[in-house]
């Protein structure tokens, strides 16, 4: 609830299970990004709580890392320095931190670009730097707020194809990903579970478990039937009632 008593959410109950990619969809302005910030501890709910592995989340921590919709890279740091930022809480030695950062950059396909400044990179490369920074922090849960929104379709598709394998890599301690998007195809391509938010105050109108093998193709009839299902949830009059 905001200070002006405007109620944003009501009865929102989400579970991000182990090794699941969770999608969060809903119309613009419904509160998807706000919900992600609540999950990350950047905002505190006026009622209810967020738990990570049974413990309440009371403030931001590297165990729940947020990848922003706006590509956040620090222009005064090179790609590797940007990634090393997330290693600060680990208090590694400089050489070790550098090794971890190089590895994270390799994971997102940026080997050889370590010393470039963000201004010298394309949008796709910069978002990969932000993802590498998030991965390097060894989070348990990765929160992604429309991470492909500012990328061109080809770049976004390229990252989308890699991202699942990158994130659920055996070498990473990541247990779950929660991604917000208003792009239904994008979410269907990636998610194991999709929560549909709608209404005002927003509530979860549906939980859809996706049962499709990977890689998923938008040409697959099953893909389209899931798409129709979610479209129905989003356009359902009931979902919009006040």
């Amino acid at each position, binding site marked *: 609830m905001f200070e002006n008593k405007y109620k944003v959410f009501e009865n929102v109950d989400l579970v991000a299970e182990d090794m699941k990619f969770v999608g969060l969809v809903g119309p613009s302005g419904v509160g998807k990004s706000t919900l992600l*910030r609540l999950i*990350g501890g*950047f905002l505190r709910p006026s009622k209810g709580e967020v738990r*990570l592995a049974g*413990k*309440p*989340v*009371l*403030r*931001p*921590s*590297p*165990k*729940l*890392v*947020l990848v*922003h919709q*706006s*590509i*956040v890279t*620090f*222009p*005064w*740091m090179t790609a590797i320095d940007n990634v090393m*930022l*997330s290693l*600060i*809480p*680990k*208090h*590694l*030695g*400089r050489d070790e931190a550098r090794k971890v950062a190089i590895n994270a950059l390799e994971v997102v396909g940026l080997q050889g670009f370590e010393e470039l*400044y963000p*201004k*010298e990179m394309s949008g796709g490369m910069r978002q990969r730097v932000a993802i590498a*920074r998030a991965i390097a*922090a060894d989070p348990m849960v990765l929160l992604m707020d429309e991470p492909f929104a*500012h990328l061109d379709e080809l770049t976004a598709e390229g990252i989308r194809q890699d991202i699942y394998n990158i994130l659920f890599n055996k070498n990473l301690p990541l247990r779950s990903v929660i991604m917000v998007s208003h792009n239904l195809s994008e979410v269907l391509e990636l998610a194991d579970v999709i929560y549909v938010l709608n209404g005002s105050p927003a509530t979860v109108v549906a939980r859809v478990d996706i049962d499709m093998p990977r890689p998923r193709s938008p040409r697959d009839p099953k893909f389209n039937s899931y798409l129709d299902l979610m479209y129905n949830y989003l356009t359902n009059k009931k979902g919009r009632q006040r």
Partner: protein
Amino acid sequence: MTDAVLLILAGISATTSRVLGLILLSIVVGWFLSYYAIKSRLFENIFVAFVEVFESVPVISFFPIVLLVFVAGIGGPLGSELAVDFLVFTAVVWNIWIGEYQAFKTVPREMVEVSENYRLTFFEKLTRLYIPFSVPRIVANLFPSFSDGFFYITVSEAFSIGSKSYKVFGITSVISSYVIAGDWADVELALFLLSIVIVAIILLFREITKRSVAKYALDTDIPVIRRGRLNLLEATRRSGILSKNPLTKLANYNRQKKSRTAVDDYFEPEKKRRINYITAVIGLAILAVLVYGLYNIVSKVSYGTWMMLIGDTPGLLVDLLYDYLRVLIIVAVSMVFAIFVGYYFATNRTGEKIGLPAIQTFASYPTPIYFPFVFLATSVFVSSMFGYLTDEFFVLFLGFISTFYYVFYSFWMGVKAMPQEFTELMNNLDLNLFQKMRRVILPSAFPYLISGISATINSAWGGLMIGEYWPNIAGNKSLVVSHGLMKDIAVATASGNIALAAWASFIFGIIVVFYSIFFTKRMMDVSRKRYVAEEGIF
């Protein structure tokens, strides 16, 4: 001749070191104060009002404090040195602090979130986020601070209170000794060498500006200037030297140990900061000292003096109105100059290459040193043009040349830091100059402009303080206006009427506090909410 050159160079070194050293001190202190200001609403209100008040009070108004604390209290060469340092510090510090505060206030929210996400400590946030983000605004303020520092140091290295004179070693005292001896050749030599040093410093500042805008401003298309092969800064980095030191390994070991025990506190509520109580205690102590000091001052002034001061107040307020009108004119002219010339320089490489160093050098050359020559050369012509308003014209002109560069630099820097996408969009839409200014450039440079206007308004008072009452500016000619609060303060100080000077400064300070709360602070908030160009593009 060689002795004279050495003496002059020593004088210039002393003066320059004072100015640059105090600028550095201001920057470092400002980082900590600005950080605390953005974290505490209460401190922010006090800090901004405090900075505005002291920036607006002309440096010469600090003379009563200088007299009591440094000259009478400490005394001797140390007292005079501290008096000068205090006066120059008060001249350079405020716009740097406001610039840093403004930069800290406008750090994009996403960047703050990233720093929170990785649980950066206070020091890490400061060094990796806030300080780098503030660099473009600090360098934008280097030029005016340097100019202002030189302006006031020429006034304060040699000063008189009533019949007593105080001097510290520096270029002003060297020049003034040559003037007394009638040694004009050495005066010219000193002015020439001073020009060379000023130009060299300006060139250095320009290089720093170029590099810092390229590296630290968000999303400009200026290519990053990479370090050369030989880089003293990099080669002598503390971390590079210390990495071989066994003590560092021990420190790292301790830090690692500490981190392991601290990891699980992510799930604990944030501890209440003890610093708040400490700050409150310090604040209360300062308040108590101030109240006691105020009581002391008020109780020591006789009833008759109070009656006289209160009787003088309506006249002082009228004189203040005159001064506000002058400030308004100076600011309006400065803004027009800043917007058009600043935009031209920011978008025209050749114009900028030639014009900017010229303006920077001109602005840095201390006005009090050359203005008497300008007055002497032009007073007959100006008098034939303006008649009885001649002195008024000179005061406004002096105010303009001593302060226009604040808004000019800020606006120029704002346009330079504007995202390239904005420029491309304006060109794409084929907007004319007026449309570009109204729709994009002015809103985009708004935070910079506000900072610059605020500093120009506040510094204009310094120009007025010198110009409104300047006895024997050229031979037996004097520059005096009919009405003006700055004149009242200057006349009262010169005649030793410290009570009236302090009372007039006090009234002025009160007005400025209201101005700060109702104008500057509000405009800063608006600029934060609506006009952060860097947030428009990612």
